[in-house]
């Protein structure tokens, strides 16, 4: 289980982003964190991965206090993070990056299996560099593939839909649906998209630096549909926030 207690974080200029936030994520669940822009979702995701360090509060993972544990150690403990804007590496091939993620050499059939889960054909990609020649949709899928290769206890996806075209988005949803079926660990997804919310077990709304509301996905979807004032502003079918 992941447990965050009284987490606070402010920007370097002192603007509060997370305010005494509390969150519990049970093992094996898929939880979508949603809410308006600027509400603190990405900050929360980065605090879970150790990329940001909270000003106050405690974080527990598998019963261990990891408040002071750095990114590397958290990764070794089984926490993975898929970046909203994936990083590119000149000279590092997709095969190599997946091997770095897995922490071992990967046979071709294993690589093929991982890439097929994100809708990519291994033959076309294993030897390609993770550089600027990859499109936004391709790099996003490869980013997701790197966390799949880790088979982590907890995987955090920061806005997987950001920066990709509509065609890639449709495929991405399918990827997440398939992934949800095949992954054993806990998943946290930061998302604005209704179709991603629909694949969640639980939904939590992050707004104004706090968890405004959380619960089972079905109940939360109903609440969101009925009471748009929950999050202050709402939107359209495809993009809820």
């Amino acid at each position, binding site marked *: 289980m992941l447990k965050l207690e009284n987490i606070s974080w402010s920007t370097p200029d002192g603007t509060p982003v997370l305010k005494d936030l509390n969150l519990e994520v049970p093992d094996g669940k898929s939880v979508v964190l949603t809410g308006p822009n600027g509400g603190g979702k990405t900050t929360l995701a980065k605090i879970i991965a150790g990329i940001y360090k909270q000003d106050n509060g405690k974080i527990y993972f598998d019963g261990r206090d990891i408040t002071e544990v750095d990114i590397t150690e958290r990764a070794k403990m089984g926490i993975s993070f898929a970046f909203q804007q994936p*990083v590119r590496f000149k000279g*590092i091939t997709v095969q190599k990056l997946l091997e770095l993620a897995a922490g071992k050499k990967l046979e071709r059939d294993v690589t093929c299996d991982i890439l097929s889960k994100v809708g990519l054909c291994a033959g076309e990609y294993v030897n390609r560099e993770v550089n600027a020649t990859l499109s936004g949709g391709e790099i996003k899928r490869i980013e997701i593939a790197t966390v799949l290769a880790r088979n982590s206890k907890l995987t955090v996806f920061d806005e997987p839909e950001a920066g990709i075209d509509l065609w890639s988005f449709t495929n991405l949803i399918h990827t997440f649906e398939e992934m949800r079926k095949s992954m054993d660990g806990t998943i946290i997804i930061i998302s604005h998209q209704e179709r991603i919310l629909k694949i969640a077990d639980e939904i939590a709304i992050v707004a104004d630096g706090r968890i405004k509301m959380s619960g089972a996905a079905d109940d939360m979807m109903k609440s969101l549909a009925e009471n748009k004032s929950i999050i202050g502003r709402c939107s359209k079918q495809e993009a809820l926030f």
Partner: protein
Amino acid sequence: MKEITKDLLREISEWNGEFKGAYNIREDGACVGRVSSKNIRIESKKDQPGLEIFIAANTKGETVSIPACVTHGDVDDLVYNDFYVGENADVVIVAGCGIHTETGEPARHNGIHRFILGKNSKVKYLEKHIGTGHGTGLKSIDPVTEAELDENSVLEMDTAQIGGVDRTLRKTAAKLGAGAKLLIRERILTEKDQTAKTEFCVELNGKDSGVDLISRSVARDNSHQGYHSVIIGNAPCTGHSECDAIISENGKVDAAPELHAHDTDAALIHEAAIGKIAGEQILKLRTLGMTEQEAEATIIDGFLS
């Protein structure tokens, strides 16, 4: 052949006790092994130190290796090697130089290589440079490469200086005929107080000739690198050069690309990016379980691979 030479050969030419195909091994300015093949003839030059390598027309799939090693200080080795590649040949040439010194005296190798490529020939040229040993004497390698590419010939150069060389000045010049292609991939790593300067001058003289020049370098510690490329398009042609460099600690890189379009159908492009390792790259690799140091090493290894 000295044991140091064997060690250097393993590093620069993947030598594993023998060479496949024709070869000439140069050790401290002298030949310590030479074999010609039916299609590749290696001869000593009459008028100056070095070799003439004749590759017969239509030779396919053969390799010729001509490594040079300097095994101790107080050596200043100068060599002129000329390659005559016959029409329609398709071969691999493995060069490379290793310098070793355990003393305070300098060691230098200056290899001047000239390639004359016949029509429709294809050459893959592999060149790796390395310096080893604990001596304080400066280890210098100053290669000069000159190439003339006849119609529709292709020269693919893959060069790497992977460490230990204190001073280097690399000069590469090429003239391309119609339909000829030149692909250059250079990687240079400098550390400590090393300096490396690389200069390219490519003349695209024939219709539909093309060059793709990719240079990647890493300058660490107090090292300093300079990159200067000149691409001259004298005909309808394509030219692309790319200079990417990573700097760390007090490393310095100067890049000066020049493009000269002397024909209205010359399409020339240059890209350059110099900077330290992006923080996001380190973060990404740390989220995969690496330490910051491991992440840096992985990024640099990949960049120079």
